[in-house]
């Protein structure tokens, strides 16, 4: 599934040149749809065959959807060739990079075990930086403040379970007393 849509993402980033690149973006989406359809159909062929009154098993709906995706993949090719996608504005790649980076950073920090507050604070800082707020360290600091508040509110107010690191364990300790 991810391989098909990674293609879509690549199509968008290539589309900064208005005339020629527009086709490429649309064609990349079509390619993504074809890949996705093939993936679904292939997955369907791996299911074991069952005897049932319905005469159709869990593979029937995936086959229908794969067929639909393929049909609209063809339609997408035509849309791309006829330039019938709406006009796209030039893209601010740096800003998009910061936002994607913000999420990647949070995912990485959470897997690294630093806990919710630092990870969410970093996400907040990167995102604010991406939308034009400088300097980065200040935005991250604000973010850590915001997420510390959110942590206390949701962990101790609504007992939502959030990933804990050293900072969170310290705060939890304060609340236990």
């Amino acid at each position, binding site marked *: 599934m991810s391989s098909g*849509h990674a293609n879509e*993402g690549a199509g*968008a980033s290539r589309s900064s040149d208005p005339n020629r690149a527009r086709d490429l973006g649309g064609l990349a989406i079509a390619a993504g749809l074809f890949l996705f359809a093939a993936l679904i159909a292939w997955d369907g062929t791996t299911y074991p065959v069952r005897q049932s009154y*319905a005469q*159709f098993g869990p593979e*029937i709906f995936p086959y229908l959807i794969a067929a639909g995706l393929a049909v*609209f993949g063809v339609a997408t090719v035509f849309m791309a060739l006829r330039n019938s996608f709406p006009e796209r504005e030039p893209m601010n790649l740096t800003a998009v990079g910061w936002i994607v980076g913000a999420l990647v950073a949070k995912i990485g920090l959470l897997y690294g075990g630093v806990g919710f507050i630092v990870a969410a604070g970093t996400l907040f800082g990167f995102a604010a930086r991406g939308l034009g707020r400088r300097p980065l360290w200040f935005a991250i600091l604000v973010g850590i403040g915001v997420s510390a508040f959110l942590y206390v509110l949701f962990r101790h107010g609504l007992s939502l379970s959030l990933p804990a690191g050293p900072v969170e364990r310290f705060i939890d300790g304060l609340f236990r007393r």
Partner: protein
Amino acid sequence: MDTFLLLLDGLAVATQPMNLVFALIGVLLGTAVGVMPGIGPALTVALLLPISLSFGATGSLIMFAGIYYGGMYGGAISSILLNTPGETASIMTAVEGNKMARSGRGGKALGAAAIGSFFGGTVGTIGIALVSPFMVSVALSFGPAEYFALMVLSFVTVSAAFGGSVARGLTALFIGLAIGLVGIDKLTGQPRLSFGVPELRDNISIAIVAVGLFAIGETLYIASKKIDVDETVEAIKGSVWLSFQDLKRCIFPYLRGAGLGFLFGPLPTGGAEIPTFLSYSTERKAAKGQSKAEFEGNKGAIEGVAGPEAANNASAAGTLIPLLTLGLPTSATAAMMLAGFQQYGLQPGPLLFTSNPTLVWGLVASLFIANFMLLILNLPFVGIWVRLLMIPRPWLYAGILTFATLGIVGAQGSAFALILLLFFGVIGFVMRRFGYPLAPVLVGAILGPLAEEQLRRGLMINRGDWTFLVTSPIALTIYAIAAAAVIGPILWRMMARDKSKTVFAMDGD
């Protein structure tokens, strides 16, 4: 009379202190997100879906309904003062409303909008109470063939009505249907599209899909625009209270708007865009004398605000009828509310009315209360909401992202959910950029598994014979409507190559 008694029971549920608090939270949040451009009620319900699990079914559904209604009120504020509609339902309000604000009558426009919203919402809610029992009795006779036909109707109309292109709408639908496939098949236990990843075997939570597409995708889209739009917030000039003269001008637009909204709300035509557009053009055509001059000049006519605002709230109410009685969402927000029901293991439909009447009627009764709360919040306190328009964008969107990831991590308990979130965010961004509507993805992902269940149940009863789908006259009628819904817009675009089509080409969220 039965309905009346049930509604009274519902009122007892809705006036329990905790439920009043949930209604208040809902309308406050709803108005706030309605005011802020780019964030709609659908996204807000999606954000709250994971967090609300501890609130209980009745409480969180009352809150979600409050958000839906509140969003319709709040949307008028940014339309009138900023000329930037908070969501698609308020596009038509901006036309006359902003002209009125610039010519020093912003207060009156806001007043007409708030009263219109109240009127439309109340008429619509009465309509829910009256029509629902009738719909339930019809729906009880439906079998797999009819339900499958209804879902097909919902699929194609949502895809055809949203966005500018039927092909792109249907592509979005199929992407959604494919997302709905992921996980263990309910009937056989076969894992599908899971590739051995345990998190994928347990189905992809609809909250991840919705938050990814709307919150992450929207933030990426806003960030990707190079040019900053120069926006000026008009100060509120003049009183928000209407004079007798103003009210007299508004009465007929209110009535017509509420009627149109309630008529179109339950149809799967994609929310409030069509009724508000029709209401605006009706008022414009009906205008005479002074109001005609105001429509055509720069002053702005109060009828052009009154009608569409009554229409969008009445349509929000109308949307709840197919949602509650058939389990069919006809707008993005209704789709998210359906996900809210499913989160508690509830399936809206005729059986819900008999198995859980306190929930259904408590929800309906709470809509009346929410409407009263909103009228008070939006007449004397309108100034407070205007301040929300001043929040700097970097902080606003950074906050949205933080909140979005908090909800997902908190509910799923794993950072893997965030990888999926980022994945759907990128898909949402690419779709926005290439003019694909997002609502069909959600409807496909939510209704797809239900449609599959009906299809396969039908096939099982009929021993693999597909013809059962087309032998029921009710189902055939529904398919005919669905076909008309796809072909209609294509004919419309071919015949009407004028300015009016651009209204329908706007993206819905």
